[in-house]
């Protein structure tokens, strides 16, 4: 009975989404206040029904209603209750419903917190979001319905994929979607602005906090995904340039360019075309990512569904949304470059270079991800494009970015003084070079990557610290740091930490597959590993063989690790569960292979990975920066409601804000 209610709720939501994308748009076009006013209530109503449907599905999982086919496919009686939650989004249909729910969460937030925006503008924004909801709800109902029944009900279900039975999986998709889907807000703002002919830039100020928050969530989602892959998948890696990872990374790259471009457009009025295009591209890449993951066009670890029918549906929707928005852009984009003028050497130029490089990086990732397909189309044969390509290209493209980051905050708008800046940054450069050289002497076998990592990290880190110091010294009390600035400082510092993590880990981590007999000790990377055999163990829904490995250094035990080989009920093959001794400066990571003989010898994989946690710490700092920047008072405390279309010059509003 309840699943049918859920189904019905979805249908109602679909109808409301239809209304949401039609009525307010007509209202805004015709200037009909009544129709415009329907936007917020309809959006709220749509959210309510989607939330209801999602609640029904969750309830079905919690009560283990195996008459619902999706529940039967993704959980079973032995599944612990906390994983029943995450099982809701463990496969295609449920994760799609989560997508729509999160889109509606953003829509609701927008409807609630936009009282000061002109109604016609918001009507268009909500209308665009309604169109996106419409597409996804249609897709769900017609091709991927989670409420399909399996009658008679099964006694027990298949299991949730064991790899997904993990706390990381509970958080990773929702956070990722909050980011991915959150770019729809910036997208909707851009389209609304284009449709309304609002060529001035007042709306950018509104868009910025929403975009920053979405970007922060996406950063969090990607960071979580990387960390989770590291400790669950058992191969000690943290990024594989897998098509689905790339599908989330491309929007992130464009999103990073977007948040910077929005800053320029808001403060100086320049880069309007860039900002509009980047807003469209960021969300387009999110949609493209959704397509890639669910259409089966690319082989991938994550791929949810390989159904041509579904693929065609999403492709058609993608064409409508992106093609439509790019057409609107072609017709309505500002014809003349606007904004305050700036010289060759200025902050604007640096950010323009930033835009270019991040956009090219996203294009490169897209090219590499799709190249196997291009190869097939061109008849070139089956080509594989993997980490060697992506890693190499990405480093090359980001090299100028890393070199120029410290200059950004120091260069002024319109005219930057590179001599003065270099003078200020000289200590950073010197320290970077000196420490890198010292590090290379300390480590036994110096590697270019490691040295470059230390140097780059210090250059960026000290560079941003020097800027923070400059503000501290020169700005008057109470006006030293705005939240926006603090966010920038945190995020750029996060970049420094991230760089250190990536390059030092790659240069110094040690991996070794060894055969260990009970009682045997191996000496790896300065640590002693003693194997104390394998014993049986039991979990809530699995049986395991658990190894005991003592890790010690200079005779003192620093930890005991228990890697497992888990056999879940049902037909699941054995899962390898590594055990990790985490540390700020070094991770020790052990995984069990297979039994090698009757006397208890096992194959064991041991990793010692210095600085690997810095990768995710850097990501978290970047995320923090994004959230903090979004809280800036300037975005919230605005003067009286802006009339639309703005008759006052846009520059005036930005100036009053600067004067705060």
């Amino acid at each position, binding site marked *: 009975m309840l699943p049918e209610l859920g189904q019905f709720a979805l249908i109602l939501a679909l109808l409301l989404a239809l209304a949401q994308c039609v009525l307010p748009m007509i209202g805004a076009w015709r200037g009909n206040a009544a129709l415009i006013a329907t936007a917020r209530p309809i959006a709220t109503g749509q959210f309510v029904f989607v939330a209801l449907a999602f609640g029904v599905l969750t309830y079905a999982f919690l009560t283990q209603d195996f008459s619902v086919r999706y529940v039967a496919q993704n959980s079973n009686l032995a599944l612990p209750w906390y994983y029943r939650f995450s099982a809701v989004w463990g496969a295609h249909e449920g994760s799609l419903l989560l997508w729509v729910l999160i889109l509606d969460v953003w829509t609701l937030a927008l409807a609630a917190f936009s009282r000061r925006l002109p109604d016609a503008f918001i009507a268009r924004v909500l209308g665009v979001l309604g169109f996106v909801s419409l597409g996804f709800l249609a897709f769900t109902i017609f091709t991927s319905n989670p409420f399909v029944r399996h009658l008679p009900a099964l006694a027990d279900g298949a299991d949730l994929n064991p790899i997904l039975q993990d706390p990381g999986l509970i958080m990773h998709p929702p956070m990722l979607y909050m980011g991915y889907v959150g770019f729809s807000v910036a997208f909707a703002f851009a389209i609304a602005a284009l449709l309304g002919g609002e060529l001035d830039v007042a709306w950018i100020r509104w868009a910025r906090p929403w975009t920053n928050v979405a970007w922060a969530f996406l950063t969090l989602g990607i960071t979580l995904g990387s960390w989770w892959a590291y400790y669950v998948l058992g191969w000690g890696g943290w990024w594989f340039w897998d098509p689905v990872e790339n599908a989330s990374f491309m929007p992130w790259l464009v999103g990073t360019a977007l948040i910077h471009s929005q800053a320029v457009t808001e403060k100086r009025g320049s880069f309007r075309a860039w900002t509009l295009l980047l807003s469209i591209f960021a969300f387009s890449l999110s949609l493209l990512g959704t397509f890639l993951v669910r*259409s089966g066009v690319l082989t991938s670890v994550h791929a949810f569904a390989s159904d*041509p029918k579904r693929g065609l549906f999403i*492709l058609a929707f*993608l064409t409508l949304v992106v093609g439509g928005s*790019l057409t609107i852009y072609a017709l309505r984009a500002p014809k003349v470059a606007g904004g305050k003028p700036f010289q060759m050497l200025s902050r604007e130029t640096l950010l323009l270079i930033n835009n270019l490089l991040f956009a090219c990086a996203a294009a490169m990732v897209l090219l590499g991800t799709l190249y196997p397909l291009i190869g097939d189309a061109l008849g070139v044969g089956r080509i594989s494009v993997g980490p060697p390509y992506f890693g190499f290209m990405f480093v090359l493209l980001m090299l100028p970015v890393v070199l120029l980051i410290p200059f950004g905050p120091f260069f002024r708008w319109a005219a930057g003084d590179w001599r003065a800046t270099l003078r200020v940054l000289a200590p950073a450069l010197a320290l970077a070079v000196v420490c890198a050289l010292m590090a290379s002497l300390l480590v036994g076998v110096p590697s270019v990557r490691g040295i470059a990592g230390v140097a780059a990290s210090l250059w960026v880190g000290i560079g941003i610290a020097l800027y923070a110091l400059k503000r501290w010294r020169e700005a008057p009390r109470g006006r030293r740091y705005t939240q926006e600035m603090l966010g920038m400082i945190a995020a750029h510092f996060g970049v420094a930490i991230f760089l250190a993590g990536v390059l030092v880990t790659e240069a110094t981590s040690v991996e070794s597959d060894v055969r260990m007999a009970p009682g045997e000790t191996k000496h790896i990377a300065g640590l002693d590993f003693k194997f104390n055999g394998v014993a049986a163990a039991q979990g809530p829904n699995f049986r395991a063989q658990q190894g005991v490995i003592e890790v010690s250094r200079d005779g003192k035990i620093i930890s005991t690790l228990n890697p497992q080989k888990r056999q879940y009920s049902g037909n699941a093959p054995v899962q390898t569960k590594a055990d990790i001794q985490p540390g700020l400066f070094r991770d020790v990571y052990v995984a069990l292979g297979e039994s090698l003989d009757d006397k208890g010898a096992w194959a064991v994989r041991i990793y010692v990975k210095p600085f690997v946690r810095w990768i995710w710490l850097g990501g978290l700092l970047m995320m923090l920066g994004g959230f903090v920047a979004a809280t800036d008072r300037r975005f919230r405390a605005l003067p009286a409601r802006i009339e639309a279309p703005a008759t006052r010059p846009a520059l005036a509003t930005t100036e009053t804000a600067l004067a705060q």
Partner: protein
Amino acid sequence: MNRLLPLLGFFALVGLLGFGIWWNTHHETNEVPSPLIGKPAPEFTLPLLYDSTKSLSKADLLGKPYLVNVFGSWCATCQYEHPILTAKVKPLGIKLIGMAWKDPPEDSKRWLARFGDPYDAIVSDADGRTGIDFGVYMAPESFLVDAQGVIRYKRIGMFTPELIERELLPELAKLQQAKP
């Protein structure tokens, strides 16, 4: 023109993705085409399954075309292919060489006893080395080798009557024409 560029680029992308969907419906996405087509088959010398003291090598087979069929007792799909080999491929008159790949000989013999033996000769590649030389990565796979020892065609996956009709027969016809 500048402003149309993104739209045009996007349409190119859509074209590519549409092609991708179409391609998927017509091809096995995991199939890796062999670089050995048109090249000489690798030299091999393998013991016979039923008499390990004797062996069969590439030189022994020169002069007449033959079809090497890679199978294993552990391979579920091979069970479905076997009757088709017996019923549809054997009658074509081409020499059938079975290669038991990565399979303990006893297991292969048992499996053949159960599912039938359409082969003219069976060799055992227990450690898989010859398989690697042929570029075998799954079972069943089949290689059509001509009288000069050059690989003309490879089938990755099982033969179906339709595939035999569509792909094997034309290749065999080409071999017939090539004969003086």
